[in-house]
């Protein structure tokens, strides 16, 4: 697919160089910094920048967008050397950025959102409205200036963000992980939009770590590893495997299902789980029922905000309003406190480790205790067993390959992947019978991702039941024994990962097909 779409339109090397970064360097204490970055972006091309998390992509883009100043090196825009001290400098030179997290006011219209902060360009009235219509038509963005943003979906919101930077005169557009929030169908639509921008002679810089997507749209790919550019390749003559190996500098892991270890012993049974919306709207969960057996991984797919977090929190006992039956190892746990559920053998990898999983300003060994503060080896009677907790933290650090100078290091100082490995190690200890893993590899580097996958698979072989929530469809398909799709708080489909495609899942996730494919 990738070769057909890119080869015809804009071959590598076409157009003038509009952005030239030479020898860019930036040092932050503790963070992998940029050094010797060299990139050339040409007019009328889509230039992808790939690299694992923490490789330095974001810093690089912040430098280009004027958020941070490089310590060394030069930036040239249209052949002219520039020095940006703020994003407004960047915009003045035609460089615009679309962030991963949208910055839109829901209760305003598209027009109001677009002109906000740029009132001087075309006013706030009909002239502005006209300009938005013109841009929308020129680039095929399909946006009506008078729509209320609250009524629009994720894809449309992203197009508004793109329109916002075009409106401000950008000729070079940086997109930071634009597909992270989209389902596969929306991704395709967005790529069409990008091709539209390219055809109009704009330069698009596209940051991602999803290699297949990158290859389907990019004309040129630059790989960043450990803070520097390691290769720049034409998009049509490289495979994702090659890119991945350049990214990690070694052989690439992949989540591949192994022989089924599913037994017929039920570990968790959820029946008719309902959770009303405290604000009085549509129930957050309605009649969710499923069972997980020993040795089974049940994957839950869904666009974010369709009840996944609520489902997890209901099972963990953090949602007192939830009704229905929850049985763990044949005992009803519905009325239990979170602590009692944990003690009964539920391990929990929360979706947001900074918010729910860690005490960032506490040392690793104290984080080891979190969630297990009533169990050995962390406590003796009412007292914390420091020696026991520390020894066990050493064990986790060793067994789960947590890269840290020591267990007295503050959790904050670790990289995301290492923080997550610590959490996984912690939640796997105490011989849980059920593991709830919400986005277990979100925001971690490829190495840590593979390690976490291995640990989950290993635990499954040993008879653990796993409830896996993920936005990464490859991860879901690769790990799960069964996949269920959650849409607006209901389970709308059950799929066999061996046979389902990401597209099919995508349809179910967006409600395009309500039919259930029985596995």
């Amino acid at each position, binding site marked *: 697919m990738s070769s057909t779409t890119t080869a015809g339109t804009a071959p590598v090397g076409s157009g003038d160089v509009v952005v030239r970064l030479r020898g860019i360097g930036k040092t932050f204490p503790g963070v992998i910094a940029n050094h010797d970055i060299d990139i050339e972006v040409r007019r009328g091309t889509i230039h992808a920048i790939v690299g694992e998390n923490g490789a330095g992509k974001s810093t690089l883009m912040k430098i280009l967008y004027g958020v941070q100043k490089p310590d060394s090196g030069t930036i040239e825009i249209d052949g002219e050397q520039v020095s940006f001290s703020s994003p407004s400098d960047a915009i003045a030179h035609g460089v615009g950025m679309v962030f991963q997290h949208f910055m839109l006011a829901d209760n305003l219209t598209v027009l109001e959102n677009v002109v906000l902060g740029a009132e001087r360009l075309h006013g706030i009235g009909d002239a502005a409205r006209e300009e938005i219509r013109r841009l929308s038509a020129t680039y095929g963005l399909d946006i009506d200036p008078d729509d209320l943003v609250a009524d629009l979906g994720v894809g449309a919101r992203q197009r508004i963000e793109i329109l916002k930077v075009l409106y401000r005169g950008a000729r070079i557009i940086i997109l930071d992980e634009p597909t992270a929030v989209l389902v596969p169908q929306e991704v395709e639509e967005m790529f069409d939009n990008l091709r539209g921008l390219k055809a109009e002679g704009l330069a698009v810089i596209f940051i991602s770590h999803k290699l297949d997507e990158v290859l389907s749209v990019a004309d040129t790919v630059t790989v960043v590893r450990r803070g520097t550019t390691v290769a720049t390749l034409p998009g049509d003559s490289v495979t994702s495997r090659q890119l991945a190996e350049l990214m990690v500098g070694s052989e690439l892991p992949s989540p591949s299902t192994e022989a089924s270890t599913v037994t017929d012993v039920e570990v968790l049974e959820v029946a008719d789980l309902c959770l009303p919306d405290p604000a009085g709207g549509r129930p957050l969960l309605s009649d969710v029922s499923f069972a997980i057996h020993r040795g089974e991984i049940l994957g839950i797919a869904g666009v974010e905000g369709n009840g996944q977090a609520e489902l997890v929190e209901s099972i963990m006992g953090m949602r007192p309003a939830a009704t229905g039956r929850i049985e763990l190892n044949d005992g009803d746990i519905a009325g239990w*406190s979170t602590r009692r559920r*944990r003690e009964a053998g539920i391990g929990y990898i929360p979706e947001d480790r900074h918010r729910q999983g860690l005490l960032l300003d506490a040392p690793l060994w104290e984080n080891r205790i*979190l969630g297990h*503060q009533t169990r050995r080896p962390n406590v003796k009677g009412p007292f914390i067993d420091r020696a026991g907790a520390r020894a066990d933290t050493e064990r986790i650090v060793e067994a789960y390959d947590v890269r840290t*100078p020591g267990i007295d290091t503050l959790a904050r*100082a670790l990289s995301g992947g290492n923080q997550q490995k610590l959490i996984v190690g912690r939640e796997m200890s105490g011989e849980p019978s059920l593991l709830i893993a919400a986005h277990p590899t979100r925001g971690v580097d490829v190495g840590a991702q593979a390690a976490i996958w291995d640990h989950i698979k290993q635990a499954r072989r040993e008879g653990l039941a796993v409830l896996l929530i993920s936005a990464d469809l490859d991860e879901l398909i690769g790990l799960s024994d069964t996949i269920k799709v959650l849409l607006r708080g209901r389970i709308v489909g059950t799929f066999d990962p061996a046979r389902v495609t990401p597209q099919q899942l995508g349809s179910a996730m967006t409600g395009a097909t309500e039919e259930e494919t029985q596995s």
Partner: protein
Amino acid sequence: MTDSRMTRIALAVAAPVLALVTAFVITSVVLILAGDDWLGVWGQILSWPSNRTMVNIVNSATVYYLSAVAVAIGFRMNLFNIGVDGQYRVASFAAAWVAGEAWLPGYLNIVLALLAGMFVGAMWAGIAGLLRVTRGVSEVISTIMLNAIATAVVAYFLRKVAIRTEGSNIISTKPIAEESRIPGIPFLGGEIYGFVVVAVLVGVAYWVVINRTRFGFDLRAAGQNESAAVASGIDVKRMILVTMLLSGAAAGLVGMPLLFGQDYAYGSTFQSGLGFAGIAIALLGRNHPVGIALGALLFAFLDQQSNPLQILLDVSPDIVKVTQGVIVLAVVIAYEVVRRYGVRIEQRQVAAALDAETREKEVSA
């Protein structure tokens, strides 16, 4: 491992030192601008205290210490108990009344009065805790209001039970009988409150409970990251209530050294404002029992050493309020600066350690 510990200790000391220097400079500037004899002022404040002053410093610090520990208990779980002031006044009054009634003989009377004080302090703080968990009322607002209510309640009840002496404008509870007083401890020719021992025990208990027990872990976890605490199985609402009760109980002890070691009654001249000093000292001492002790001694030292300024140099001792205020402001800022610096150092160490590790691997591979 020990390395990062050493760094952390060094950084912990750096912040207060930085703050003290800042406070010294700013206070000096104020003195110079006001045309006062700034060298003379510092000469007096920083002179070696007389034995009498030493005794006063220790006594004053004892009271500050208890107040700051009460505040710190709340701080450790992100509860701003601004109401220690009201809590200790209500509790002191209650304890003084109980002790004055002398239902039990001798030392038993002291124990009963202390328990009464702690109970009343805990209940008074518990009101704020209850409002927070049931109604979501910020404890900052409710404790401030409870301070005002405490003033009125104590004034009302004091008037009810007070004894009056002819010609005196002071009203107070019945004085505590001789045998139910806490004897002082001889110190540098004077006497310090016997309650110093209790204060030290409170400090030790505070440290053990917070740092060494499951309960303390839950409390700190809830303070550092409430949602992580919930996910780890901590009943945060219960923790809020219990923490407020503990903080209030500790606040109940604040007035006890004064009651049993000096005034022997609660009256209209009972020392006020101790709760607010406690907030500043808890901030200064970073909620650490030893840090708080040093902070309390520092504040007491500044208070006592500045007292003669007016007599010797015609400079109002209010100037040390400026110093104390600046210390607290500066220390808050300095801690944040130092904390960030510490995190950066640590991240650098992590990065360095990992670099070395990866390099080894690459070499061996």
